[in-house]
């Protein structure tokens, strides 16, 4: 299959059988496997200037023209050699300082020596990639913020977690990785079905999906009030299906639109997934198969659909039962929706003395959520926080911070559930009073901790 990455196109066939972390060089179409480490061309004339007082920017320092370079490229000459040519034809190169020479070479290498490293998918890789490439799809959840969520939420094997996310399934995948297939996860989803485009990039074994459940957000209210019945929603499509049987093909289209909303979302999810794959350079042949299956399915008979409907309903009943126990070990929320109503409702399903974490791209909704949770009671140790991440360039005599990333990583509200008092308003008042302790005292407490 042909894949495009960073203005290059290639086939992945040659990459099979190599270990993760292997570096490849792109030739015209296929992949070539060069050595792990190319010997640095240190045979450079170690001639360098000390400062740039005599370097004039006249735009004529490079003696090769644009067309010359293109000609070199078209001849299929190795990138390494092009870089060498560029250096030799630069009149100012020798006058540059050693550091500037280094920088010049690095810049040119980046442009002409296209190398690709294939790595194994992980939360680290995928969350970094999503934040860099598709921040909008994951509500600008930066990777260090995601890391905080996993820790604050005490995510680990054996938990029964509730996850509500609209981050393309990235948060779900991160939770699944940390749970390693032990315990269970209930994903609450809005609309027709859960989006798991990013989740499928992880390449989890099938076993991990055995205890992954999903439950529609729109049924939460009825589940809480006890009016939830499985007859209400999923029976409807069945009627349609019956009608379809008699009416034939024209209806079929309609149905596949109305009824299999879920399927269509997963289908688009998979399309997204395929573009993502190109980024991570990780193929998952199964997905292609699945898609082909879907196409066939369109022609498939209605019975199949009915069976699926029935199965889905069975799963829904199971999930509802899991939620009804109200003993979840934690709650993770990271969505595009307002967090307050989500939290107030979903916390009902969480056992006491368990952590919860809410992500929001903006601070203000979390301020409101904080206040509402205080009023509700049943939570302690509420904390509104944000992390800043700073990357460094570490080179001999050239170490400094690279860039500051602030603000854009989003905010977290975390806390711990406790047994909800019967005299609710009373306790929340007390708790509220406690919180209003003067900040000076708070600082003292913190100083003591340090």
């Amino acid at each position: 299959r042909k894949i495009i990455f960073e203005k290059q196109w290639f086939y992945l066939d040659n990459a099979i059988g190599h270990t993760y972390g292997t570096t490849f060089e792109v030739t015209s179409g296929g992949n070539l496997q060069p050595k792990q480490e190319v010997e640095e061309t240190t045979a450079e004339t170690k001639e360098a200037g000390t400062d740039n007082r005599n370097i004039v920017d006249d735009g004529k320092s490079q003696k090769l023209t644009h067309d010359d370079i293109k000609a070199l490229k078209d001849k299929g000459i190795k990138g390494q050699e092009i870089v060498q040519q560029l250096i030799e034809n630069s009149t100012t190169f020798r006058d540059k300082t050693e550091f500037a020479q280094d920088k010049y070479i690095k810049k040119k290498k980046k442009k002409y020596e296209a190398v690709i490293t294939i790595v194994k998918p992980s939360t680290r890789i995928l969350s970094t990639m999503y934040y860099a490439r598709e921040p909008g799809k994951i509500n600008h959840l930066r990777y260090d913020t995601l890391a905080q969520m996993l820790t604050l939420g005490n995510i680990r094997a054996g938990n029964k977690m509730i996850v509500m996310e609209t981050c393309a399934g990235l948060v779900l995948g991160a939770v699944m990785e940390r749970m390693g297939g032990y315990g269970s996860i209930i994903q609450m989803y809005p609309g027709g079905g859960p989006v798991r485009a990013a989740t499928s990039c992880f390449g989890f074994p099938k076993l991990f999906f055995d205890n992954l459940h999903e439950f529609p957000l729109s049924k939460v209210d009825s589940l809480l009030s006890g009016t939830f019945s499985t007859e209400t929603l999923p029976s409807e499509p069945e009627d349609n299906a019956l009608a379809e049987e008699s009416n034939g093909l024209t209806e079929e289209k309609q149905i596949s639109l109305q009824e299999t909303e879920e399927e269509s979302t997963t289908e688009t999810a998979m399309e997204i997934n395929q573009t993502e794959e190109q980024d991570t350079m990780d193929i998952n042949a199964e997905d292609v198969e699945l898609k082909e299956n879907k196409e066939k399915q369109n022609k498939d008979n209605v019975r199949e659909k009915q069976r699926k409907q029935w199965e889905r309903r069975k799963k829904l009943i199971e999930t509802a039962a899991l939620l009804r126990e109200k003993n979840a070990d934690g709650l993770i929320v990271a969505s595009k929706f307002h967090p307050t109503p989500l939290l107030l409702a979903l916390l009902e399903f969480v056992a006491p003395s368990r952590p919860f974490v809410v992500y929001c791209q903006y601070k203000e909704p979390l301020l409101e959520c904080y206040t509402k949770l205080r009023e509700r009671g049943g939570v302690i140790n509420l904390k509104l926080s944000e992390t800043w991440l700073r990357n460094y360039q570490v080179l001999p005599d050239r170490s400094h911070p690279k860039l500051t990333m602030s603000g854009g990583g989003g905010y977290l509200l975390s806390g711990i559930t406790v047994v909800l008092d019967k005299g609710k308003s009373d306790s929340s008042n007390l708790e509220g009073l406690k919180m209003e302790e003067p900040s000076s005292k708070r600082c003292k407490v913190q100083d003591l901790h340090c």
Partner: protein
Amino acid sequence: MSFVEYGDIIKDGDTAIVFLGHDSMFPVKVQHGSVTQTKYGVIRHSTDLIGKKYGSKVTCSKGGWVFILHPTPELWTMNLPHRTQILYSTDISIITMMLELKPGSIVCESGTGSGSLSHALIRTVAPTGHLYTVEFHQQRAEKAREEFREHGVEHLVTVTNQDVCKNGFGVSNIADAVFLDIPSPWEAIGHAKSALKAEGGRICSFSPCIEQVQRTCLAMEEYGFTEINTLEILLRVYNVRTISLQIPDLGKAAEDNSSTVFDSSNPSNQGSLCTNLQQGTVQFKSGVPLREMVGHTGYLTFATKS
């Protein structure tokens, strides 16, 4: 209870966290017949704690109350007895993710110190992974062993009392990840490499000073580590407060004044603003930084062996 598994009921021998109020809590070892003093009065373990649910409110002798919480590595980090400077949850989070730790991972750590990171690592690699931790200070190593036993995680960790820079981790070619928090990490990079699996793994070194980072990076490069990346993570905590700001008196007529302020401030931010006309103030909710200064804990240098 265990640090790697939730339990519902408080039992004899458990470590529980007594929560007095925000940021004020301490760990307690639950024992029959034992008592704990708090500023709200006495807690009698046999009657007040054992058999109760985690997350319950416990009334103390003076009528005050506290919450009893299930221990987690994060709560432990906030409350553990310090034997050394410790790593806090902010750094621990990014370390765990960047080292790609998950159930089943084999991790090497040095030094053990107060065991703050160790508990978090054990939590993440349980139930099938293992932590090999090396501490050259004998007393600290002993104390750490004792804590792991008390916390029901001793089967997931091996504490070795030796100098990691001289003798390494005592294991070879089995680790998925290595973490170093020692004064001279560059002297242990070779040992770290041999502890990692032949097919590769991740390494992280924590150092407060940039000079240490410099030498560590050079050592990592020398030993063929790739993807060398240094970062720093800072936590900002906000206090949620209702702030009221006074409206200045510009000498306008009373009605005029109030209406203009109302109009200019409201359209953008309808919910959170509220004008108190009588007192001439505007109220709003704000997240106020806890401290003015963000501290520095240390630089984290990550790299890959492949």
